[in-house]
């Protein structure tokens, strides 16, 4: 690892921990570490004339931890398995709805606002976790790297909007809170859900995984139909 890479790696961790501290103290939703920390780093890169490639040569090791972190979600699911089984109906029904709504709403809003077909296809898989979203994007004729960007923008948006939605439409149960965060904003939503509570986080982890699996099936069956009827 180069010197810049090393500094980027350590620096990202330090800036992240500091932004978390500030976020906890101010408790302002807009100060989410996922928004503040990247903004500070972008500013530092601009000031020091460092390219993203140089930064990412070290920081990429953090991105790589997303893999084992996904595997790690087996632990909260294992710990709360009995409870999840008990609520299997609510989980299944809400996530199938969520996945279908994610595909339809991205599609319709994008058509309405006038985006190109390629951008629409890249947008559709954005609410699920990156590797799967990129695969689906490829399958349905999108641009996988653009999809990866939309996934992160969605995660950021969802982790800020999610708690507001919970408050505004008066979502009461832990299950519903966790499920909507994991469905709408994958890992970023799940992280938010763990802030609310262990149980919410567990539901959110499960939502993130099941939503990804449902989306694989829907993008193979349901999405081509939409494409056929709406774009022709």
């Amino acid at each position, binding site marked *: 690892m180069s010197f810049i890479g090393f500094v980027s790696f350590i620096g990202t961790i330090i800036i992240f921990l500091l932004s978390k501290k500030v976020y906890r103290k101010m408790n302002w939703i807009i100060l989410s570490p996922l928004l503040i920390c990247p903004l500070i780093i972008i500013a530092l890169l601009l000031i020091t004339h460092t390219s993203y490639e140089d930064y990412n040569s070290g920081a990429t090791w953090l991105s790589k931890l997303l*893999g084992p972190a996904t595997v790690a979600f087996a*632990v909260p699911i294992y710990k709360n398995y009995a409870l999840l089984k008990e609520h299997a109906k609510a989980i299944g*029904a809400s996530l199938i709805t969520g996945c279908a709504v994610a595909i339809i*709403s991205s599609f319709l809003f994008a058509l309405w606002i006038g985006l190109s077909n390629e951008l629409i296809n890249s947008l559709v898989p954005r609410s699920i976790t990156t590797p799967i979203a990129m695969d689906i994007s490829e399958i349905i004729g999108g641009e996988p790297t653009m999809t990866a960007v939309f996934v992160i923008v969605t995660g950021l948006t969802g982790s800020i909007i999610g708690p507001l939605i919970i408050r505004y439409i008066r979502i009461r149960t832990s299950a519903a809170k966790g499920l909507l965060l994991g469905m709408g904003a994958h890992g970023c939503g799940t992280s938010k859900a763990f802030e609310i509570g262990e149980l919410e986080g567990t539901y959110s982890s499960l939502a993130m995984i099941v939503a990804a699996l449902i989306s694989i099936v829907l993008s193979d069956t349901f999405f081509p139909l939409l494409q056929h009827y709406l774009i022709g």
Partner: protein
Amino acid sequence: MRIQIAKIIVQIIFLYGILLLGDGIAKVSHLPIPGSIIGLVLLFLALQFHIVKLEWVNLGAGLLTSELLLFFVPSAVGVVQYDQIVGIIGIKLVTVIVLSTIVVMACTGLVADFVQKKGAKKV
């Protein structure tokens, strides 16, 4: 403290090993499912059937899941590379993402609440 840190590192390496196993299975089987999800299912089954003990992974998994946002930061910084996200198209894209995320979250939450309440009334 030092033992704790060593334990966490070893456990994360162990989780990484499961990820690699999942990646291998994904490659060989040609399933359209990424290795991380296969790894998650493997670890869950291993815990369920007591092949892996909870304390082998608990600390490492706890750290990875609680600091999950950190692992998204480099990708979030990477958004600067894309010109598409700025300008009129960028505003349109973000509008679609915000609107769609609101609808998805609201529908998911309402359905989950509704099904649970219906279930609770029957009992």
